[in-house]
């Protein structure tokens, strides 16, 4: 039977002899947000990296709309990963970072899309800023805009707010949820914060010692 969206089946990620992710199966439909919650070391980041193709699966498979992507290189998967600390390119300005994933578009379209995304994340007019001039919250907004620019079929977010202080985090959670939902992209949101998981997601999965314990509807 073909499932729409992402389907992960019995995915296992190993580092040497250590099993970080142990036969996890899950699915995410287009437009749906799945939160994965767990302590540090529970394997949630490893699972995300496995789905993105940054770690090879020791066993199991990853499919999109029924097509097997288990052995497809990262850059051909169309899954964007937003890192905990943004990982903005230091040699490019804000606009350059956002446009990185849409370099194949004609210049005019690319600039229009960049401007549109800057407005979306509330940083209108910041295009020429250097990365080093941004605050932590602004940097993560740029990282989000950069991730959304290529209109990925899957958005993977690895604790995108955890490096920010509490007040800012609470303000951004709602905003982030609205933006992701508005994009209509299937998303996996990894966090160690239960409140954050339930605020944002349609469903919440709990990971412990590399195993998916349960998935509940938020």
């Amino acid at each position, binding site marked *: 039977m073909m499932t729409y969206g992402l389907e992960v089946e019995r995915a296992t990620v190993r580092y040497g002899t250590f099993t970080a992710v142990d036969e996890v199966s899950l699915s995410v439909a287009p437009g749906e947000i799945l939160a994965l919650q767990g302590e540090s070391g529970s394997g949630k980041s490893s699972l995300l*990296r496995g789905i*993105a*193709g*940054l770690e*090879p699966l020791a066993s199991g498979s990853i499919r*999109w*709309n029924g*097509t*097997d*992507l*288990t*052995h*497809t*290189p*990262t*850059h*051909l*998967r*169309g*899954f*964007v*990963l937003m*890192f905990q600390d943004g*990982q903005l*390119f*230091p*040699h490019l300005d804000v606009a350059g970072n956002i446009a*990185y*994933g849409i370099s*194949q578009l004609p210049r005019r379209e690319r600039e229009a899309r960049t401007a549109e995304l800057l407005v979306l994340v509330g940083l209108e007019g910041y295009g020429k800023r250097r990365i080093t001039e941004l605050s932590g919250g602004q940097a993560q907004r740029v990282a989000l805009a*950069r*991730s959304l*620019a*290529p*209109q*990925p*079929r899957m958005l*993977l977010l690895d604790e995108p707010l955890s490096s920010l202080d509490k007040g800012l985090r609470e303000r951004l959670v709602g905003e982030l949820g609205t933006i992701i939902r508005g994009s209509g992209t299937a998303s996996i949101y990894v966090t160690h914060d239960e409140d954050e998981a339930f605020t944002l997601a349609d469903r919440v999965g709990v990971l412990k010692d590399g195993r998916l314990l349960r998935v509940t509807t938020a």
Partner: protein
Amino acid sequence: MSRYQRSGAGATTTRPGSLWAAASFKPVWAIAALIPLAFLAVFFVWPVLALVTRGFYDSESWTLTNVAEVLGSARTWRIIRQTLTLAVLGTLGSLALGVPGAYVLYRLSFRGQKLLRAIATVPFVLPSVVVGVAFRSLLADSGPLGFLKLDGTLVAVVAALVFFNYSVVVRSVGVLWAGLDPRQVEAAATLGAPPPRAFLTVTLPALAPAIASAAALVFLFCASAFGVVLILGGSRTGTVETEIWYQTTALLNLPAAAALSIVQLVIVVASLWLSNTARARQERALRLAGSPKQLPITKTGIPAICCTALTVAGLLLAPLLTLVWRSLQTRTGLGFGNYALLATNANGNLSVSVWRAAANSLVTGVVAMLLAVVLGGCVSFVLSRTPVSRWGRTLLRFTDSVFMLPLGVSAVTVGFGFLITLNRPPLDLRTSWILIPIAQAIVALPLVVRTLLPTWRAIDPRLREAAATLGASPGRVLATVELPLLSRGLGLAVGFAFATSLGEFGATSFLARPDRPTLPVVVYKLISRPGVDNLGMALAAAVVLALATAIVMALAELLGRGEERGW
């Protein structure tokens, strides 16, 4: 509509489970590793192995006679002793002056520090013949310090070795020192330790990894020094290197030279192993060090400041200034007469004019630089990856140490090895000038890798991953993320490679054909001939060579601005 939804068909063209998709990057990886390895095998391992074999083979059968004969002679042991003495004294001298220098130039903060650091860095990149000629101009009987009667003595050679390696210690120790937390010493002070005790019990142990690493590297450089020893040592002071040269060029005793090369190989491999162990420890220490913190000048720093001022003025500047000053002295008083003579061939002493030789140097230097940077770039690219498989990791470690080998294996050995291997089919390059840039590239290769690799490894792998998830292919990641971030290291690497090739003397002296000499070869020819004009021209040519190197390095520093790191 997203490009992935639009290109839904594109996703299905990646056949499910197809191997090429997962393995698509590996051929590139393998090619990048194999090209430099092949180059190294043909132009380094083969000549060196052939040389070693020559020592054990007397055209008919395997024999230990050559080696036994060489090892049995008192002369050999005197030379080995002298080599080790020079290396030990050179290392101790560099440490004794370099550690205070590291404190003053990196830990303290004062106006003019940048300039002093630049002055301290210059000697390392100066060609060895320039250093030899500069010290000779200072210490020779006719020079300002001639009354000390140091010309041709061990002291003269050691001073020149310290001159060369001072910056290695200063930079390596200084970068770590600047990163130490000053509160550790403050804590020791509040516990009642006077400054000397705090230094010995807190600071020195923390600096130990950098000191050990610098010491091992300096020992390696001193033990394989050639040009300075040849020029300054005269007939009394020599090393295994100069002895190999003497046996080959003066006595044409190739078996003895080959046996001596084996001795040198043993010394070098041992110190290289030491240096590698020490370097790993230093890299760990550097990772743990904090961001640089510089302190204002206090009373406790005065001895170190005096020591450094004396070193910079007396050891670094005096020989160079004397060189320039004496190059301007002619029969008819001060002037550029010696420089005017550079357009001539010194009354037939040289086969071409000095300017012609300088042009040869530039051409070979550019070719050698391109070779070294491209190959070193490939090596650094491969070494900056972290392969998943154990096989890959083993290959990586192997590659890493193999490419450091030319750092220690003396240039003389490389040159001599080329002579006896690349002179007949399948590879007859004996008459081709390309041999010289190839040898120079081999010598420069480790420096290029040592400059590029740390910058490359410092790039957060997650930046590459972020680019990949945004749809960038590995090639595009390399072009749009890694190369722009590498530009600084690349500038320095280009400079080092070019400067090293310009000044390379050890290998070139074996390989340069009489009708196509390079500038260092010409300088050596002139300084070893008697006559006022020959000396004057040697001094002027050395100044030209020094200036060319300095300009190259200044440009490179400009390109690689802001980068400070240990060796």
